């Protein structure tokens, strides 16, 4: 039994995900407090969300999570869209552990694949704020504008394709395009 528990514990430890402390999300398409509240209520239905601090005036939401939870940016977006609105901007505070990043290259943070755009090559350590640039996470105008930063097809599809499977990622893995 002990061995089984140890094996499970080991398995769980390998499942620890990239540490995302908070997400700040700005929604578009609304002005009033009632619309803001419908997004607020929708975000609060996610089981690993611990707190949503709304700024009604700016239509923005600071979202906190349970420690160690796997944060799914797509689920946050879906909650906003199900409430009837769209995401205008999403930033996340991520805890990096000496990760080397390069422009127009991706890194795999324990299952969270981030493809950096419009950045200088550098070493990331400690908490940094990243902005998600994928379709549906910025205005459609900005999505078109940001296309200048990469020629890779994964920018349009949001998943690994022939452009980025050489690093060992399975084709079709969700990949988030981000900047600092």
């Amino acid at each position, binding site marked *: 039994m002990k061995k089984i528990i140890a094996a499970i514990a080991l398995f769980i430890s390998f499942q620890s995900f990239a540490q995302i402390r908070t997400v700040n999300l*700005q*929604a*578009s*398409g*609304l*002005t*009033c*407090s*009632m*619309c*803001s*509240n*419908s997004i*607020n*209520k*929708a975000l609060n*239905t996610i089981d690993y969300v611990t707190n949503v601090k*709304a700024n*009604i*005036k*700016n*239509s923005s939401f600071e979202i906190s999570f349970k420690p160690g939870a796997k944060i799914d940016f797509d689920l946050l977006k879906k909650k906003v*869209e*199900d*409430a*009837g*609105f*769209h995401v*205008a901007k999403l930033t996340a505070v991520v805890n990096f552990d000496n990760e080397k990043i390069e422009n127009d290259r991706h890194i795999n943070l324990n299952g969270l694949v981030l493809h950096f755009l419009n950045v200088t090559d550098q070493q990331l350590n400690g908490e940094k704020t990243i902005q998600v640039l994928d379709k549906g996470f910025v*205005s459609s105008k900005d999505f078109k504008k940001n296309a200048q930063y990469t020629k890779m097809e994964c920018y349009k599809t949001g998943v690994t394709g022939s452009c980025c499977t050489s690093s060992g990622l399975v084709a079709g893995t969700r990949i988030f395009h981000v900047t600092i």
Partner: protein
Amino acid sequence: MKNILLSFLIFSGYSVCAQELFTWSEPASNMAAKGIGIRLNNTLMKENNSGKYNYHLLPEVMLGLSANLMIHVEGFLSNADDKFTAEGAAIYAKYRIFSEDEVHNHFRIALYTRAAINNSDLHQPAIELSGHNSGYEAGMVLTKLVNKIAYSAGGSLVHATNNSRDKKYFVNDGLRNAFAWNVSFGKLMLPKEYTSYGQTNVNLMMEVLGQTNFGNGRSYVDIAPTIQFIILSKMRLDAGYRFAMVKDLGRSATNGFLLRLEYNIFNAFK
């Protein structure tokens, strides 16, 4: 009657922006997916000939099936035929086909359809699927929100069938089809600046509602101002008045009051 109206002191919540939550028409925006809304619409319309006020109670349940599709189911009760009775029901569906959102503004287009049955006596050639006629309609609505102001315009083709219980459409068959339209405007008046969900929102709305019958070319055009209170960002009370500017297309009761109370349950089902 006043007591009845005042006793319905429950309010509402909705996912579209408050200043486009029009009272006499629907905006192109939908309620949140997985939400349920309950409405009690009370109208008190003055009969043109007798001066008597007819009370109509229209309970309504709204379901957000997805971000783009919602349905309403309505019931119609009134004392128009002297005894307060149930007269009919309707189902309404709205599908958002276009949505362009930016921070603090949006433009949306939706298609909608309604089918109604009614057993009341017919007194007028104007077609009213919410409480008078059996029939159906299909239309389109466009809504633009910019900061604290919302504009909306919609139009629909309306067809009247015979009312149930052998109450035939009382005018000639050539008058069964009409075009109904609305132009609506709403402004968020209060609060001046948002600080919390607890602030009461006050909206002022002005709607122009019209109908033209294809058979005889006759029309009515009404003006309908409304004041709306949103409380705790989830409850709603509308008080409105409607009066006729153009009365060419006959109606038995043109002017009157509306009090709408609405309660919304967010994330009500999986």
